């Protein structure tokens, strides 16, 4: 403020006395130089704010599109009950998401009215790599008689696994929204926009934000898998999202017994998994690595050299190289049949504060997608039940959802195929 005022005064002097006096010119120069230096309160600079994902396509964005640094899951109770109301909900969501992902200028209203936008990203909203992905919980179908017959075959309500200590206020929901973008602020802005536009249909039940640590770019352009809050790489064995036919097999629903409307959708699993990080940090490295089945620094599996080396358990039947109950071995046996159980992970790390015991309340916002919920997450979790890692982790929330197919183009909307399958005559969005 003071700098601005000084500069303004100087400018006025220049006008009054002419720019010729040495003193004035000197002052003016000093101020200009000072302004060029960074101020503590300057906004940090990013060259990624114009990164943009497309909202349109056979599949929703935010699943196999790149995972940016900031993520959030929000779970809602949905009050839209009739087909007409559900249509308005789906359309409004699609219209808001299309706008938010594209970025632009919100309407400017009379200043006697509350502004149309929260303004937290400034008057022009940058896309900032935002994706918002819409999924429906089992209860969404169960509570609407006209939708019961159209529920995806494998969609169920999440049941507690043996190590879970589920907090009811962090579980389930009629509808989930996954927000991903380069910065937490962009996700929060988007959530506030959606809440403001749909107060009559969406009641927020719980939300969890997370982040992924960033790495500097490597000279050879190669990538490393990000680390979780246990310090291990998380997702090394993820199926290659650049391989479309692999994604068709592992991620996207297209089975004959699933309703036609659900094809190109996927099953979403969300788990809020608390990590006992103080305890973990007091565990010997060799034990940590034995529990996970990987070298902590490099991420290589035991017996391997590089992160992406594939462990060969067939030559290690007694678990001398990789313990039989190591996390990665239980999760993925790496044989022909275990290919059926592959899941596609998209996790974030979360940090929430301090527990009543004075410990850090943090862990993994586990998110995964799969074409078959039962063969995917549910089977993998059963294989993991009882693993030594359980001593250090405690799932406390989450839910199962069905991620709807994507909107084909600008007059389409997410959820249209479901409404049409129910026999309801939808009207397209007028572009």
């Amino acid at each position: 403020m003071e700098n601005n005022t000084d500069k303004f005064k100087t400018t006025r002097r220049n006008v009054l006395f002419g720019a010729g006096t040495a003193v004035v010119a000197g002052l003016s120069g000093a101020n200009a130089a000072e302004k060029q230096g960074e101020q503590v309160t300057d906004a940090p600079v990013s060259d990624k704010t114009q990164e943009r994902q497309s909202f349109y396509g056979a599949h929703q964005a935010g699943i196999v599109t790149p995972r940016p640094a900031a993520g959030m899951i929000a779970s809602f109770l949905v009050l839209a009950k009739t087909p007409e109301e559900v249509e308005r909900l789906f359309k409004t969501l699609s219209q808001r998401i299309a706008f938010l992902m594209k970025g632009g200028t919100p309407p400017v209203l009379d200043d006697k009215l509350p502004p149309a936008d929260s303004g937290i990203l400034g008057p022009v909203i940058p896309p900032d790599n935002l994706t918002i992905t819409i999924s429906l919980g089992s209860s969404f179908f169960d509570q609407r008689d006209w939708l019961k017959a159209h529920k995806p075959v494998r969609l169920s309500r999440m049941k507690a696994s043996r190590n879970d200590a589920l907090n009811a206020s962090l579980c389930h929901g009629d509808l989930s929204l996954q927000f991903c973008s380069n910065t937490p602020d962009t996700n929060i802005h988007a959530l506030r926009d959606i809440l403001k536009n749909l107060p009559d249909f969406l009641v927020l039940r719980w939300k969890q934000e997370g982040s992924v640590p960033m790495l500097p770019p490597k000279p050879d352009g190669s990538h490393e898998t990000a680390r979780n809050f246990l310090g291990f790489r998380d997702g090394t064995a993820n199926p290659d999202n650049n391989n479309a036919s692999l994604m068709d097999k592992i991620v996207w629903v297209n089975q004959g017994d699933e309703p036609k409307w659900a094809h190109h959708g996927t099953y979403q699993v969300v788990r809020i998994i608390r990590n006992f990080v103080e305890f973990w940090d007091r565990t010997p490295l060799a034990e940590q690595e034995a529990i996970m089945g990987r070298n902590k620094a490099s991420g290589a599996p035991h017996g391997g050299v590089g992160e992406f080396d594939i462990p060969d358990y067939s030559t290690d039947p007694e678990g001398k190289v990789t313990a039989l109950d190591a996390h990665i071995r239980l999760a993925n046996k790496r044989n022909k049949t275990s290919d059926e159980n592959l899941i596609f992970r998209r996790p974030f790390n979360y940090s929430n504060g301090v527990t009543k015991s004075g410990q850090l309340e943090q862990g993994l916002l586990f998110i995964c997608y799969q074409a078959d919920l039962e063969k995917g997450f549910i089977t993998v979790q059963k294989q993991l039940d009882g693993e030594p890692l359980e001593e250090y982790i405690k799932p406390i929330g989450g839910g199962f959802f069905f991620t709807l197919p994507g909107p084909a183009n600008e007059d389409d909307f997410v959820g249209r195929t479901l409404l049409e399958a129910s026999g309801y005559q939808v009207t397209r969005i007028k572009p």
Partner: protein
Amino acid sequence: MKLKVTLSASLFAITAALLPRVAAAEVAPLDLVAPIADYKIYVSENLEKLVADTKTFTDAVKAGELDKAKSLFGSTRMSYEAIEPIAELFSDLDGSIDSRADDHEKAEKDPEFTGFHRIEYGLFAENSTKDLAPFADKLLADVTELNKRITELTLPPEKVVGGAAALMEEVAATKISGEEDRYSHTDLWDFKANFDGSRKIFDLVRPLIEKTDGEFITKVSGNFDKVDVTLSKYKKGDGYELYDKLTDDDRAVLAAAVNTLAEDLSTLRGKLGLN
């Protein structure tokens, strides 16, 4: 208020710049005189009832009539809750009449914790009228003083009109959780009074925007009706069931109605040309 067509950012910027920055409805300041005067009468009636009801309530407390005092708690508060945006203009009195334990550093044990909720704590949590007499005397003195101060007050129009939304913000932020009447669980009485107080303001100014903004009127009335229907399911005798009887589904219906009313009523001042 919604943009009917999607415009490109630059095109929109041009369009917006050409629009005159005036309120949606053309309401002359004089049009507000009658509704504000009517509202003042409504406030006075509620204050008179508040003083009378508080007298009966605090008499019961002081006489050690535990059951009678308990039964009067919910209904006595209603005339306060209905006019809360005006009552709150005097923050000293609002604090001593209606603050909650968590507004105070030492919670229930804090000497500054007085008023309705301190007495509620004694009656319902400690199940006794013991030691409540000083709080009863102070409450009656405070509501009497409130009545006096508001009688002498010229109601600021923006506070009156803004009160419709303010009541909904109160419910949305700290009442839907059931934390207001945490010892007695008489929250639904408060809800009813808050909604009635908000609707009163809306109904008084409604004729001023009925012609220009019919859609808005229909939507807001519809949401008030939805609240009435939901609350009426919990009517019991002259009052309401305890808050823990409210089903999760109905709580969600109320939450959504409150949030929608808060959004819509937040435009009411602007629609009437008030800052």
